[in-house]
């Protein structure tokens, strides 16, 4: 059994300035993530997804004002006791807008920035940068300005700049929402590789549910600040009624199977597919 690297214990968070009638951004959330797990976080807008990310990397409570109860542990230590800079080295963060994250004049400097701030020795920084450039396939951009790159390339550099701090956990909050389909797919491939080959623990917030379904081990579904479903893709998508109620899509192939089953009585009783390929395999049996 892999060790727990991230744990929320009865976490409730309320942003400062929330109106009296307004609800808490997170309400009594408890969950734990094991080393090497690939977790997808889904939910409607304002369900608490970004808040959950901010608690993983310590932006809450360090940079946001509000009331926190409960505890968040990273590698067994309470985030309240870990300085933000140090936590940045343990939990890497990537956001929707890579331009907001990049600041240096070249990709090379961008990759050196994080570990330099953590006072990593020079030789070690260079070694990490060389490795990261290969893993991420960005060696060709080494001397270019990050701002001259396409959105997909920028997002890869943003991920790479976090990687050189060698975090164990990577938290990505809608990393593909400003990318075109090619950029989106390349970022998904990179994240998958970091998970499968490098063994990184991944917390991914996205709206691209069909794409996520191909990759994640586990989905956590948030609604109004609470965890309402938590399980494998098959488990969570079997609760189609819940998805309908909270207003998010299940993959189209899952919906087709469900309609065939419930409305047309033409499903053979097997598990509903969650990816296009599973559906096509199924159809091929009779085609």
């Amino acid at each position, binding site marked *: 059994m892999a060790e727990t690297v991230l744990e929320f214990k009865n976490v409730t968070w309320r942003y400062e300035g929330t109106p009296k009638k307004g609800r808490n951004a997170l309400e009594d959330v408890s969950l734990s993530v094991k080393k090497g797990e690939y977790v997808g976080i889904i*939910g*409607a*807008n*304002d369900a608490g997804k*970004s808040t959950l990310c901010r608690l993983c990397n310590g932006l809450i409570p360090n940079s946001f004002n509000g009331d926190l109860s409960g505890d968040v542990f990273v590698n067994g230590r309470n985030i309240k006791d870990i300085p933000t800079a140090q936590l940045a080295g343990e939990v890497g963060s990537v956001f*929707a807008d890579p331009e907001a994250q990049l600041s240096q004049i070249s990709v090379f400097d961008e990759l050196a920035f994080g570990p330099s701030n953590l006072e990593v020795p020079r030789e070690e920084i260079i070694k990490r940068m060389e490795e990261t450039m290969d893993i991420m396939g960005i060696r060709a951009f080494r001397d270019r300005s990050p701002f001259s790159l*396409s*959105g997909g390339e920028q997002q890869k550099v943003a991920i790479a700049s976090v990687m050189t701090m060698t975090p164990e956990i990577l938290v990505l909050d*809608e990393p593909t*929402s*400003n990318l*075109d*389909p*090619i*950029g*989106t797919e390349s970022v998904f491939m990179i994240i998958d590789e970091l998970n499968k080959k490098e063994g990184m623990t991944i917390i991914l917030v996205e*709206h691209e549910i*069909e794409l996520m379904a191909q990759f994640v081990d586990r989905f956590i579904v948030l609604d109004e600040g609470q965890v309402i479903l938590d399980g494998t893709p098959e488990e969570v998508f079997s609760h189609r009624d819940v998805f309908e109620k909270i*207003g*998010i*899509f299940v*993959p*189209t*192939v899952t*919906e*087709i*199977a469900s*309609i*065939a089953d419930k*409305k*047309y009585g*033409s*499903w*053979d009783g097997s598990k509903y597919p969650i990816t*296009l390929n599973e*559906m*096509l395999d*199924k*159809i091929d049996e*009779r*085609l």
Partner: protein
Amino acid sequence: MSNSAEKKVIAKVINLEHVYPVAKGSEGIHALKHVNLEFYEQEITAIIGQNGSGKTTLSKHFNGLLRPTSGQVIINGRDVAKRRVSEMAKEVGYVFQNPNYQLFCATVREEIRFGLKNLKLKESEIKEKTVEILDEFGLRSIAGKQPVSLGMGTKKVVALASVCAMDPEILFLDEPTTGQDQRGKTRLGNLALQMKEAGRTIMIISHDMEFVARYADRVVVMTKGEVIMDGTPEEVFSNEEVMERAMIKPPQTYAIANHIRDKDDSFPCVRLDADLTAKLLTEKGLLK
């Protein structure tokens, strides 16, 4: 185009070419190459293609933000290049992909009022219209909030609402669904349908093929500055060669239909949603 015969042409793109200048002596970037298109009233057209295919460059010729290198864009019979940008803003509403480029007021309410004030409406009309728009877009509870404090998805709704408040004849939406959940997408789609019913011409630039398949009457496919196809969603998404050239994955419904049609060409090429797909698969006996 089946219905184009009866419908009025609102905008016409004639041999439009745009070259972005680069350093002296080099050739420039050929972003649009002889594009010809017509847009009709009461129509939702999706423009799809990868980044760099020319979609946004095309759209910026509609409000005069870019001037053609050669060719013309004619709106309601008048050449856009001969008109002022400020004048075009009333006819062509443009909602940017990144709402941060568009929002600058202190509150959501002010953001909606801004355009209405520019239309020189009376204060009583401005008040009435503002309340109407805040309700229609579900923004009432956050009317007093600062736009910068909102999430990306909500910011986009605010940007759209502020443009729709001015009721432009042509509405350009650049990537409207990014950062939106299902409710947000459904709301956006319904608003587009409503505006269409009211006679407006709507152009949607999008990478969201599910959204395009659901709401567009017509799909224009661009690659490398050229229009490579112009047809109904079912025509476009079932053309595997065009999809491949444009590097676009069709929605899962059409991907299933295309897969079946490779072996059984009697599978119909029709407008598909999840329900119809389930029904057709049932009739073909492909599930049980």
